[in-house]
C-alpha cells in the first residue's frame, strides 16, 4: 500500500467488540435524537451507512452524514467497488469513495467479494447487483490486484465481505474459504464475514444442515483475518424458491446460534445488525444490537474468568 495506515486516525483493531446497526433513512431522526443513556443496552458503538447514498457532495444527505459522524463512529459499506470485476474497479467510483472517506474518517470501510462492472461498446456498465465469482486462481489474482489498487487509492485497509450467491459456476477450482483466506493474506485486506449470507447460501445450495455447514465454513477462516461480522434475517420462502438475502426481518435464530459460535471461536469482533427492508422501529433495531452485545459480553466475561483462574 502506498499510503501508510498511520495516515488515518483509526486503528483497525479499535472497533474490536463494537456493536453497531445499519442506519437507514427512516431512522435518521431517531438516531440523531438518541440521548446517551445510562442503560448500556441502548448503546450503539457505530453505525454503518451505504457509501453510495452519501456520494453527493452537498445537500441534505451530506449535512445529515456530517451530523451522524459527529455522534457515532462510522462504518462505510460500499456496494459497487466490484473488486472481482475483470473490467477493473471504476476510477470515478473509487474517487467518490475516497472523497467520502476523507470527509468522514470512518472507522471501518468494506465492500464485497463479487463483480459489478462490465464494458459494453466501450462504456462502463454497472450490473446492479453483487454478482458471484468463479473461485479460480485467475480470478483470485485479479481480485488481489483490484483490492490492492483500491487500498492504495483509499489509503486504508478495507474489509471484503462474502456474498449471498444465487448461481454456482462449474468453472471453480477453489473453495470460497480458500479464495477469501488467500485474498486476505496476499492483499492484506480483512474479511467481513456475513453470517446470514453463509446460512442463505447453505439453504440455497442444498446443505442438509445449513447451520452446521456455516459453522464448518467459519472454521476455515483464521480469526486474525476477520474484521467484522454482519448479522441479518430474511423472508422465508417455499422450496424450490431461493431464499433472497433481503434483510427484511430480525436476525434469524440460526444466525444468532451461528454468531454465538463465531464469537466463542474468534473472540469479540465488530458486529453489525443489518436491516434494510420492512424496517422496524429504531428501538427494535437497537434491541437487536443489545442481543449481540450480551453475547460479546458473555465471551469477554469468560475470558476474564479464565485469565484470573
Amino acid at each position, binding site marked *: 500500500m502506498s499510503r501508510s495506515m498511520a495516515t488515518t486516525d483509526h486503528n483497525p483493531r479499535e472497533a474490536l467488540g463494537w456493536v453497531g446497526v445499519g442506519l437507514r433513512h427512516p431512522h435518521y431522526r431517531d438516531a440523531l435524537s438518541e440521548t446517551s443513556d445510562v442503560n448500556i443496552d441502548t448503546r450503539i458503538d457505530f453505525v454503518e451507512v451505504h457509501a453510495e447514498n452519501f456520494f453527493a457532495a452537498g445537500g441534505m444527505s451530506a449535512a445529515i452524514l456530517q451530523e451522524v459522524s459527529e455522534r457515532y463512529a462510522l462504518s462505510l459499506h460500499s456496494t*459497487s467497488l466490484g473488486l472481482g470485476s475483470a473490467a477493473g474497479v471504476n476510477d470515478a467510483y473509487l474517487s467518490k469513495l475516497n472523497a467520502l472517506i476523507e470527509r468522514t474518517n470512518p472507522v471501518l470501510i468494506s465492500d464485497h467479494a463479487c463483480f459489478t462492472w462490465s*464494458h459494453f461498446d466501450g462504456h462502463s456498465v454497472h*450490473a446492479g447487483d453483487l454478482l458471484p465469482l468463479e473461485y479460480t486462481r485467475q480470478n483470485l489474482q485479479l481480485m488481489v490486484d483490484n483490492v490492492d489498487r483500491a487500498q492504495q487509492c483509499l489509503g486504508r485497509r478495507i474489509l471484503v465481505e462474502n456474498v449471498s450467491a444465487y448461481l454456482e459456476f462449474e468453472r471453480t477450482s477453489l473453495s470460497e474459504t480458500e479464495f477469501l483466506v488467500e485474498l486476505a493474506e496476499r492483499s492484506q485486506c480483512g474479511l467481513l464475514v456475513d453470517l446470514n449470507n453463509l446460512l442463505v447460501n447453505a439453504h440455497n445450495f442444498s446443505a442438509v444442515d445449513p447451520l452446521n455447514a456455516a459453522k464448518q465454513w467459519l472454521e476455515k477462516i483464521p480469526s486474525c483475518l476477520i474484521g467484522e461480522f454482519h448479522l441479518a434475517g430474511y423472508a422465508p420462502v417455499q422450496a424450490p424458491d431461493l431464499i433472497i438475502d433481503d434483510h427484511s426481518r430480525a436476525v434469524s435464530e440460526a444466525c444468532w446460534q451461528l454468531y454465538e459460535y463465531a464469537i466463542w471461536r474468534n473472540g469479540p469482533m465488530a458486529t453489525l445488525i443489518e436491516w434494510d427492508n420492512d424496517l422496524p422501529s429504531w428501538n427494535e433495531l437497537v434491541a437487536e444490537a443489545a442481543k449481540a452485545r450480551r453475547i460479546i459480553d458473555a465471551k469477554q466475561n469468560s475470558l476474564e474468568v479464565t485469565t484470573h483462574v
Partner: protein
Amino acid sequence: MFDDQTVSVEHHMSREKQTLAYRQQELVAMIYGLQKAHPKYSEGFARGLRVYQNNLLATAARALSVTYPVVDQLLGDEAMRVLTRGLLRESPPSTGDWADWGSDLGELILTTPLAQEHPFLFDVATLEWQLHEASRSLDQALEVGSLSLLADSPIEKLHIQLASSIHVMASDYPVDIIWRAHQDNDLNTHNLADELQAHQGRCYLIIHQQDDRPRLQRMTAAEYLWLADIREGLSLGELLDVHSDFDFPQWLSTALENQWIERLTETH
C-alpha cells in the same frame, strides 16, 4: 446503448483476463435480458438468473421512484416498471450510484404513447430531475467580498457567477402546480384540474438549493431570459444593454436573498 455487436472486451487485457471479462459480460447481458441463457445452463442456473433479473428491476424501479416521485404517482407501478425496463436497456447505470441514473427518463417518455396521454409529463420529469440534481449540489456560500466589484469594476468586465445548483426551465404547462399538488397525500384532483384549465401562457421556473434543500420558484419571462444570458456568459454591461428595461437592483436583492449567486468576477 446495448446492441448485438457490443459484446466486446478491452484489447489491452491478457487473453485469460479477456476470457474472464467476456464471461462476466455475458452474465451481465443475461441479467439485462440482452442475451438468453444458453441451453447448456441448468434449471438451477436459470432460477438464480431470475433472482438477479428481479433484483435489478426492483432496485432500478425503486431508484426511479425516489428521483421521480411525482411521475411515479402520475403513472403508477405498472407503467413505471415498463419505463424502468426500457431505461435499463437504453441507458444502463454506469456510475455505481443509483442516484446518478435516470436522467433520460423524460426522453424515453417522449418515445411512448404516455407523452400523448399526459402532454405535461416530459416537463414534470425534467423538473424532477433538476430538483434531484439541485438537492445533491455542493453550493458555495456567496463570496461577499466580490460584491465590491460592483463599485470598483467597469460593468463591461463584470460577470455574475450563479450558484452551481441553479437550473431554469420554461414550460407550456404549470408544472410547479402539478408538482406541488402531488407533495401532499390528500391530492385534490378537482382543484388541480381547475388550476390546469385556468393556466395561461408559459411557466418559467428557477430550481436551486437553499439551506441544503432544493427549492422551486416561479419567475417572469424577463427573469428567465436574463438568467439564460448570464449562463451564456454575457457581462453585466451586455446584460443591461440587451435587457434595457430589466430591474437589476431588484433582481440582485432577490438573488442574494435566495443564494442564487456564488460570486461576481472580473475579466481582464
